[in-house]
């Protein structure tokens, strides 16, 4: 176990902490020390800045879309511009914010800390991933700036490869390049989790956050190369007038959809699995009890990653795909719902007989369960063949995946940022403001997206710059919600930035939590730990942890090996 000689201040919660003398933020100075760093923690911060930038861009597009849709005929922008707005919103948010957000920021920062390693297995490759991300991002920004992109983020052929007049080629290249960033991140995580665990850190002592990232990395390395090559082929088709997916030249546009969704459906799990990992850390910490059904939650992450690869053609029920294939894919889609249900029930049960504190990260945890529940359950409607005939490509789909991606993934990301903010910066954020922001986000989100379920069932198709007047009421509600939502996102951006300088000093373990990352200083040393830590406790075990300063009664009781019976 590490000795607390550089933990900054008293080890127990007697208040009045000081920042440690040496940590990763002050070990070296200057712009070069950041741009050439191989420290996973600094790279995580580089990612934090860049994904926030893309979130801001994507968010701006989203606001414009919502304002435009206030009236049926939409006076704000022309149809061309509207199509570019939703396409660029999707591309920026999915490929450059949601997919890298939790893995590349929180995962990068925390995985080595959580498993007791000094860094990821390949620190230089980690830095390279960030640069690849930047290069890919520049291509996409170039596309946005010169002609924009109006194909929809799905790039369906032959619209994207033949008919679109916008800057498709640079965008496709940008996403192709960015794919290698994901691949290298996933590769790094897998190798690190396999070979870099500290003594005593067995697979079943790994935090569930790490399990979730392992599952995510599996998708990264198996799925991403397929989208890369597919978009490359579509790009070649566009540049050289080839015919891979162009029916006029003998190609098959449906093949593009198969290859696209082979990655892009699992990509949804790239977004949600890490968020599930975050929630699996937050809930036991703030309920102060072991997570209910550890091995089921860990196993369900892997199950989601694996089964998630066998369901892709449920995006294609109405393309004329074989009815037999549709039946198979619908059936498999229902199977992938089960592990998500298992997780939700286990989180809920963890609250039972806990000691629940209502601090900000827990509010996000609560919000996540609620929103993910709605997002997940509405997936059952879309997986249902008969209902999908009606719901496919309507606002119901929009609402469903925003509940998963924004209600799930972004809530998890923001919640995780709050939870580990003291570890990352060494300082606490203002609790009152943070709670206000969490509640604002929750209300704004629901007001924005719940009406869209009804719009969808009424039949409003997605990607419409104008719509029949009977749909207006729900659109107005949605736009009203979006403005609340925007406020909810601006608040944390402001007070988190503020707290980096003025926040209260947090100390090594403010909540307290049981993970290994909380055993080192806040912010941690460049090498993470003074000496390689040795793990001799079970995950989320408060009962036998005398070092946390909690009211642990009596002698340590025997804990089961796997955290459940």
């Amino acid at each position, binding site marked *: 176990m590490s000795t607390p000689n550089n933990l900054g201040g008293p080890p127990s919660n007697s208040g009045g902490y000081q920042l440690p003398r040496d940590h990763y933020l002050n070990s070296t100075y200057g712009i070069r020390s950041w741009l050439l760093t191989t420290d996973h923690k600094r790279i995580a911060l580089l990612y934090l800045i860049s994904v926030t930038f893309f979130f801001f861009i994507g968010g701006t597009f989203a606001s414009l879309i919502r304002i435009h849709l206030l009236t049926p005929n939409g006076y704000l922008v022309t149809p061309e511009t509207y199509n570019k707005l939703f396409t660029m919103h999707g591309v920026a948010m999915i490929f450059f914010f949601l997919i890298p957000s939790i893995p590349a920021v929180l995962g990068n920062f925390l995985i080595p800390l959580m498993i007791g390693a000094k860094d990821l297995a390949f620190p230089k490759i980690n830095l390279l991933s960030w640069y690849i991300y930047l290069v890919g991002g520049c291509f996409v920004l170039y596309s946005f700036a010169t002609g924009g992109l109006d194909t929809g983020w799905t790039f369906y052929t032959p619209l994207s490869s033949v008919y679109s007049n916008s800057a498709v080629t640079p965008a496709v290249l940008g996403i192709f390049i960015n794919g290698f960033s994901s691949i290298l991140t996933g590769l790094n995580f897998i190798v690190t989790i396999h070979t870099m665990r500290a003594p005593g850190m067995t697979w079943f002592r790994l935090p569930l956050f790490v399990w979730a990232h392992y599952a995510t990395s599996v998708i990264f390395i198996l799925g991403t190369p397929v989208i890369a090559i597919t978009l490359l082929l579509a790009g070649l088709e566009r540049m050289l007038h080839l015919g891979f997916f162009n029916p006029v*030249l003998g190609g098959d546009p449906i093949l593009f959809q198969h290859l696209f969704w082979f990655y892009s459906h699992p990509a949804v799990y790239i977004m949600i699995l890490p968020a599930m990992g975050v929630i699996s850390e937050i809930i036991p910490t703030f309920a102060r009890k072991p997570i209910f059904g550890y091995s089921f939650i860990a196993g369900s992450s892997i199950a989601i990653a694996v089964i998630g690869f066998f369901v892709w053609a449920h995006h294609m029920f109405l393309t004329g795909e074989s009815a037999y294939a549709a039946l198979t894919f619908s059936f498999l889609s229902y199977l992938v719902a089960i592990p998500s249900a298992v997780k939700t029930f286990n989180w809920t049960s963890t609250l039972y007989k806990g000691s629940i504190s209502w601090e900000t990260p827990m509010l996000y945890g609560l919000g996540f369960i609620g929103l993910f529940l709605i997002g997940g359950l509405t997936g059952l409607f879309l997986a249902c063949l008969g209902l999908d005939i009606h719901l496919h490509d309507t606002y119901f789909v929009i609402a469903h995946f925003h509940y998963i991606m924004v209600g799930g993934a972004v809530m998890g990301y923001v919640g995780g940022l709050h939870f580990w903010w003291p570890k990352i910066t060494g300082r606490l954020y203002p609790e009152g403001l943070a709670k206000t922001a969490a509640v604002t986000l929750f209300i704004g989100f629901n007001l924005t997206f719940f009406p869209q379920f009804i719009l969808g069932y009424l039949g409003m198709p997605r990607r419409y710059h104008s719509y029949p007047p009977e749909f207006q009421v729900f659109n107005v509600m949605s736009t009203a919600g979006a403005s609340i939502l925007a406020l909810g996102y601006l608040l944390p951006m402001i007070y988190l930035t503020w707290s980096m300088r003025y926040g209260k000093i947090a100390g090594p373990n403010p909540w307290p939590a049981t993970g290994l990352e909380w055993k080192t200083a806040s912010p941690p040393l460049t090498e993470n730990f003074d000496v390689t830590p040795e793990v001799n406790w079970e995950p989320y075990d408060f009962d036998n942890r005398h070092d946390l300063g909690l009211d642990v009664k009596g002698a340590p009781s025997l804990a089961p090996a796997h955290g459940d019976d």
Partner: protein
Amino acid sequence: MHRTGELYGQFENLDQQRESASLGMWVFLVTEVLFFGGMFMTYTLNRSTYPEIFGEASRSINLTLGAINTVVLIGSSLTMAMSVWAAQVGKKQLVSIFLILTLVLGSVFLGIKGVEYHEKFVEHHVPGLNFNFEPGADAATNSHAQLFFSLYFAMTGLHALHMIIGAGLLIWLIRESFKGRFTPEYSTPVDLVGLYWHFVDIVWIFLFPLLYLIDRH
């Protein structure tokens, strides 16, 4: 546990370092399999849709050169494997010799590939450049044959790109081997480049029958 060779800061010992590197390479090769996989998928569907024209187009590419290239590439895999062996048993000179042989065979492969590409160029078989399958072919035949050649160039081109990257890695290895860097204790770079090189060989083992041998009877 002390051994020669560089230990990077993030690792506890050389065993851990070597293992991480090896696992990393294997995981990378998995992504490569899926990367080529997208093209194999496109190939499979199109070939099953247009079997006759794919056969006809396939007959127009040079089987002799393709077969020679297969032999050359498998030969280079052998020399690559031998250089790994030489590093493992500590024959430093042999490491360099086998690496150079591998590079030479790899370059021969690329050279022959260039000759084949040139033939295709002369025959107006390069899609997007000057494509015209055969005089008098109707539009449908022409565009379906163009599909075959698009795939031919995409697949062999991507493969050749991997070969060029591999050749670059080999040049770096040869330089290091001249310095006597590779020993029985430290042969990781040779091992890893070897894995990569063999993988590129495997891709060709599938490309050869799929592109050259569709309908040769």
